[in-house]
């Protein structure tokens, strides 16, 4: 291939189903975006928090399987989740989970055809951030009250 004049060319490399290369628009890659913009930052955060959720599911499976196994295994998982590393991980997981959930709500609205204009996109983006903070604090307030009991 010739030398690239524009970084966006990197996104134009695709293949036909028979394997031959073709110049066509591909799903955008990260380097073409200004990640300091709220819109693109929240967009990629939706994906990243989705991946974090996947890791969080591993914790859920561990917690369920340990509880099914007996008091010994449950004590191990509780020991880890109440350690500073476990609490830190769970806190990040809670924030990621609420962000992904609320941002998903925004995506569902987009899928239904609402909120596409730029001012609304920024407004809903800020709402997602505020909502994430509020729900994370609420979740941990409940957790701390339960823990202290």
């Amino acid at each position, binding site marked *: 291939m010739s030398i690239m004049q524009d970084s966006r060319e990197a996104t134009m490399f695709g*293949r*036909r*189903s*028979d394997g031959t290369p073709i110049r066509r628009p591909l*799903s955008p*890659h990260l380097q073409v975006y200004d990640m300091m913009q709220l819109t693109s930052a929240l967009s990629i955060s939706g*994906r990243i928090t*989705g*991946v974090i*959720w*996947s890791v969080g*599911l*591993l914790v*859920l*499976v561990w917690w*369920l*399987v340990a*509880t*099914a196994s007996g*008091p010994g295994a*449950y*004590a191990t998982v*509780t020991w880890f989740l*109440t350690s500073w590393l476990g609490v830190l991980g769970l806190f990040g997981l*809670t924030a990621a*989970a*609420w962000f992904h*959930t609320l941002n*998903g*709500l925004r*995506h*569902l609205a987009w*899928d239904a055809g609402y909120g596409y204009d730029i001012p609304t996109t920024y407004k809903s983006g800020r709402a997602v951030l505020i909502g994430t903070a509020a*729900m994370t604090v*609420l*979740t*941990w307030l*409940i*957790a*701390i009250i*339960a*823990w202290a009991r």
Partner: protein
Amino acid sequence: MAKDSAADATMRSPLGRVRGFGSAKGGTHHWLMQRLTSVALLPLVLWFALSAASLAGAPYEVTRDWIAHPFNAVLLLAAIALAFHHTAAGMQVIMEDYANQEWAKVAGIYGVRAICWLLAIAAALAVLRIAV
């Protein structure tokens, strides 16, 4: 379908004939399932996150009894199935977008799906062992 005339006879396979002719018109299923599972997961996540928070530091018997309660067990099983379906679908989209090599993409998609199946079964079995 049953009567094959000589004019229709060809040495080309059906796959060979359709290659390069566009979509199979079945591409909306994954998209729709991702949206449906996300809508179903909204109330389940709200319920689970707040319930799990209220179980923080709970002794073994309390957690076990909570999972064993039929209401919680049913919702947990639903959440497990939907969450792993949603995760596998989401990871598939990420790999379709970013994987450069076809073999890596295919291996990644089906590898993640296999892991999701096994973990979902393990989680469901754990809930059933406690609840039944």
